[in-house]
Every structure is written in C-alpha cells, then in structure tokens.
C-alpha cells in the first residue's frame, strides 16, 4: 500500500515484553474509544485489587486514568479545537529507570493523543513494573483490545545497543525522560524531519511556606499539611523531579518551628527506611556536605535531617535530598526568588501564599524557569500538562479544513 510504514521490532537485541512485534503506522484520533476503554479497564483492574494499594505510585496512576477523569480531559480537549486533530503516528517512549509510573503515564499520554507506542522498559524486573505490565499483558489478550495490542508494544533492550538509534530513525515522535546526558544522546540521533520530540529533562523543585500562616493552623490542619508534604516527597524517596528539596520559609520569626518534628513523626510511622536506603541516603548527604561550605545542620531528627542554606547561590540546584534530607532557608519576601529561579526549576509547591502573588511572580520577565506552581500535596500529580508542555498538543497534528 502506498504510504504505509511498518516498524518491525524483531531483532536479537530487543526483548518484547508484551504487545505487537510489528507496528503499522496509522493516524488515530485522540481519545478514540478503544484507547479510553483500555485505560479505564487498566485503572479498574489496578484499583480492584487491595494488594496493590501499597504501591502509591501505581494507585495514583490508576486514579488518574479512571473513567470520569479521562472523560473530563476528553471534553476539554475537543471543546477548544476547531481543527481535525490526529495522532502523530508511532512514538518511541524512553521513560526514566526504576519508576513504573512514568512509563505508565508516558504510555497513557501516547494512547490518549491517538498514537501507536513503543515503550522501552529499562528494568522489567522491578516489582511495580512487573505488576503493571502483567495487568497490561492480560488486558491485551482481551478481544476488544485487539487494536491496542496491534498498535502498542513494551520492550526492553540494553542501553549500549543501537536500538534507541535505530528506532529513533523510524518513529514519528519521541517521548524521552532522563538526565542531561540521556537527553543529549537522544538529541544527537538521526530522526525523520517530521519527528516531534518531547524531552522531560531532570529538574529541580522547591517549596514555599508562610510560617505565620502555618502557626495559625489547627492541629488537624497542620497534620494534614504534613501528610501532603510527605506524599510530595517520600513516595518516591524524594527522587521525583517535582519533589521539593529546598524549603523557603516566609515570615519566619523567632517562634519555634515544629514542622520538621511533625514530619519526622509522620515519617517514622509511614516510611519504611531500610539499611539499604540509609546507605544511599548517607552517601548522598555526605556527597553534598563534602562539596559545599554554605550549609549548616539545623535539625538532625530520627528519620530526617535538615540543613540550612546560608547563602542562596546558583549551586542550590545541586541540593537534592534522598529518603529524608531537606534544605531550608528563610526569606523576607518572594522577590529573592526572581534571582534564584532558573530554567532548571520545575515545580514550586506552596502553603499560605496567595495564588495570585505566585502568578505575578511567574509572570515577571526575569523569571526564566518554572513549570508548575501547585499547593503542597500536588507535587507529583502528573497530568497532560507536564513540565511546561501541553503533552496532547505536542503529540498531535492539526488538519485545517475551511
């Protein structure tokens, strides 16, 4: 057939985990019925099983792609479109290692935007990944999801091989998550002229808390804020790009701050620290403390340690905690943030600050970074607008008809 393109994944270097060996390129409509049905079913299957509830990240994903939520997104998407919208074709997804959620969202982004998807799984043996792929594998056998099976595939391959390179040559779009080196490597690869890329590169996130407002909170509300802060940070051991590492205290006066003690108590109850995690945690902390001369330990609690940043400088983006290491600094007003924020900044989570004030800050000409400003508790809620990009727009093309 004229204009048909097929990508074959049959190669010694590629291990097909589940899905099709060959993908025939088509341009599907975003939010097509079978894709919506599939994601809805995936969501249901995960949420039905109590035993999966301990995998917070998997559960958040399942909640995100439940029927009602996708319906809303579907409505919003077409409500503003005056053109015909189609998917780009075949996408290559390279999610970050060791985080099953990112692979799941990446796949969902691809499906919802009307694309066919090749998703590279860096470690198929991780527990969360195994569960997710196990469910997907079962669903793909269902007759009504035959189309999904034909159009999508989860693969694994060694990073050192040419597979990324070869697939990059053939696909219509790439969704690449990773650190500086990974992004650079993928940028160097040959792609079709029409290939569209989304790069989710490594970013830095912070938190701003108005201390006066915090002190006015009731016990219950304080604890609720702690819980939200915990969810933003500890669910992925502080490794998510959108988890805050550095907390800016506004209006901090001499009154005693019990925020960290409360967090420490909560962490002790909820977070399973192991010797293995402690090893990585202490290694990370040592690396930072050996490097910089502007830090002072302000709290060393049972499960968390807090270091005060004595002078704000361009190195602060290297202050990345792990499994309970945070950095803090006091500021008189938000103006200082104009100087601090740069293109490496992704999410600001906040408490006690007027949303408008933060919007004004983001609108200032000198503020060259920032992708998200969200209340504490929503740091890692992934969505179709992510990392400063409207993912659906990036992964679709428009056909103008007059």
């Amino acid at each position, binding site marked *: 057939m004229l204009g048909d393109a097929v990508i074959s994944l049959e190669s010694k270097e590629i291990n097909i985990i589940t899905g099709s060996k060959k993908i025939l390129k088509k341009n599907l409509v975003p939010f097509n019925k079978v894709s919506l049905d599939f994601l809805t079913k995936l969501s249901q299957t995960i949420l039905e099983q109590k035993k999966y509830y301990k995998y917070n990240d998997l559960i958040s994903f399942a909640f995100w792609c439940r029927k009602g939520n996708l319906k809303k997104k579907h409505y919003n998407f077409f409500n503003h479109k005056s053109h015909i919208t189609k998917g780009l074709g075949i996408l290559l997804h*390279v*999610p*970050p*290692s*060791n*985080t099953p959620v*990112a692979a799941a969202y990446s796949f969902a982004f691809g499906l919802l935007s009307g694309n066919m998807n090749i998703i590279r799984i*860096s*470690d198929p043996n991780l527990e969360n990944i195994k569960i997710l792929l196990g469910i997907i594998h079962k669903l793909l056998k269902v007759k009504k999801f035959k189309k999904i099976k034909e159009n999508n595939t989860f693969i694994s391959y060694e*990073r050192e091989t040419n597979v990324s390179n070869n697939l990059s040559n053939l696909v219509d779009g790439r969704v690449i*998550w*990773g*650190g500086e*080196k*990974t992004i650079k490597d993928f940028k160097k690869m040959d792609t079709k002229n029409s290939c569209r890329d989304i790069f*989710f590169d*490594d970013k830095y996130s912070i938190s701003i808390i108005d201390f006066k407002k915090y002190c006015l909170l009731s016990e219950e509300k304080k604890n609720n804020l702690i819980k939200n802060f915990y969810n933003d940070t500890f669910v*992925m*051991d*502080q*490794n*998510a*790009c959108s988890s805050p590492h550095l907390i800016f205290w506004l209006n901090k006066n001499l009154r005693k701050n019990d925020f960290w003690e409360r967090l420490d108590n909560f962490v002790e109850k909820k977070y399973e*620290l*192991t*010797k*293995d*995690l*402690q*090893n*990585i945690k*202490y*290694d990370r902390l*040592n*690396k930072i*403390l*050996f*490097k*910089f*001369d502007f*830090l*002072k*330990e302000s709290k*060393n609690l*049972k*499960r968390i340690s807090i*270091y005060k940043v004595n002078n704000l400088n361009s190195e602060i983006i290297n202050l990345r905690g792990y499994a309970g290491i945070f950095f803090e600094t006091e500021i008189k007003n938000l103006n200082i943030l104009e100087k601090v924020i740069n293109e490496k900044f992704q999410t600001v989570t906040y408490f006690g600050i007027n949303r408008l004030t933060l919007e004004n800050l983001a609108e200032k000409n000198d503020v060259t970074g920032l992708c998200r400003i969200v209340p504490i508790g929503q740091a890692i809620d992934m969505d179709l607008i992510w990392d400063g990009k409207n993912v659906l727009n990036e992964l679709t093309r428009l056909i103008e008809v007059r």
Partner: protein
Amino acid sequence: MDNFLTEIKKKISKHKNNCKNYKNFINSKNINIDKINKLENIPFIHVNMFKDYELVSVKRDKIFLELNSSGTSGKSSKIFLDKENSVNQKKYLQKILQNEFGQKRQPFIILGQNPLFLKDRRKIGAQVAAFLGFSLIGKNFFYLKNEYDKIDYEGLNNFLSKHWKEKILIFGFTSKVYEILINQINKDKLKFPLLNATIIHGGGWKKLNNIGLTNDDLKKVIYKKLKIKKVINYFGFIEQTGSIFLECSLGYFHTNDIADVYIRDKDLNLAKKNQEGILQCISIVPTSYPGNSIILEDKAIFKGNICKCGKPGKIFTVTGRLNKADVRGCSDIS
C-alpha cells in the same frame, strides 16, 4: 581506650584543618571535635567519598603513592599516601600480624603472580597492596603462579622440600583460595604435604557467596583436599590499609589496638548485640587522608565485648553487602 580516642581526635582535627572537603563536612554538621568524649561519637564518613573526591590532608607534593580499589562496580576509590602514612601502614599491620603469628618471619606462599611484573609502581591496586603488606611477616617468598598465570609445581615442590616441616603461611584473596587451591591445584603433583600451613585470606565473599559457599564450607573443602586446618579470614579494605581484623578460631573478627568497629542500625544509631547493621570502622592509621572513621557498605553483626576464644577485642561478623539497586526516581535512565 582513652588514648585511642585522643589519637583519633588528633588525627581528624588535622584532616579538618587540611582537607577542604572534610572541613565542609565537619562544619556543616556543627561538630566540635575537641568536645567529643566517646569514641562512638566520632563522625564517620561514607566510604564512597573516596570515589567522589580526591581527599588529601597533606600538601599535594608530599603524596608519593596512590592506592586504587579494584572497583568491581563502577568508580574506584583513590587513596593518597605520603611517606609517613605509608610507613605507618606497614608498622601497624606488622604489629597486628605479629600479635597473631609471632615475631618470627615464616616461609610465605602467595596465591598469585609476582607484582614485580607491574609497570607503574605509583599506582598499585588493592591486591598488590595487600601482598606487600602481609609480606612483612614472611620470608623465602614464593609466588604460586608463574608469569603465564599457571601453577608453578616445580617451584612449589622446591619450596616445600626446604620448608615443609616449618610453619608456612599461604596468603591470597578469598576468591583465589577457592579458585587456585580448590579448583586448580592438582594434589598428586605435590611431593610434600601442606600440613603445617596456615592460610590467610581476605578481600570479600562476593564470588563465593554467588556459588553458595560459606566460610565454614570453604574451611571444610580445604581440609578435605589439602588437610590444612588453620584457615584465617581477615577483614580489611583499601581505605584503611594498615589496619585489619583477623578471624579467631571461633570464626569472629576481633578488634585490636589499631582499629575498632561499631555496627549501626538503619537510623545509624548503635545496633544491639546480634542485630544486623551497617559496619563502621575506626583506624588510627590514616594521616594523609581523612579515613580514620568510615562507614562501609557492608552488613555486620556485633557479637559482644568478650570472646570465648580468649583473645582480646570486641567481636563481630561480616554478613554481606548492602543492596544498592532499588533507587526509585526519575533522574535518569539506565
């Protein structure tokens, strides 16, 4: 013990004053070294710092030797030695070994090749450093492998013909003991028995644990094949070369005058007796780099302050390595 604490405090103060990175660490943690009154409160640094930073606490031009870890997983440690540190390593190691084996040097078989084949003596690996260190209690050295890495039976028989009635030391890495003495050596080609030999080995159990072999198993197979009764495991690592812990007849590592240990729990507090924790080692040897108190990536169990074997020192066992695989996050792909 108080002298030990004073000695450690003196050394880490010097490191703080002369090594910028170490100073950053001590200052950030608000540590006042003078005020430390218990050994367990001596700050410990993560062993990986020797991989990430070039830590030196003497003038750079005083450095005359650089030790490198074998680096089985990625980056390797770099340890910088000046004359003083290097001399001390030998002095202290000799002291520890003489306490165990006596003042008299013993005929010495090395399970490996002669390090003189090496080209760059300024950069020496962990294995060679260990050979050189243990050679302090040996004489009439014999390298069991020839320059083609084959067992030199002729040389061995020649060596044994002279020394088989004496106490002999056989030294090698744990993995080599298995590889060479269990797998490779042909007993029938030996013209003399090894009855009087003592095997000293160290360097890690990773390879043997992978094939399911424990310390006890190793001792048994050695006895079965070569009739050697005395097999002593030692625990040491390149970041604290010069101080080692020797295994006693009951299978426990003992601390000594040169080096002490603490086992820490997942919160880095002291672990209870018989509770598996993370191993921290404290050594008085390092002077040209801040390596006196280091927390390792090894799991260990504190077994008590007194050993039934009668030898002095705290006792502990090393139970394996910590697992570093499970890192959740979105910083990079692999």
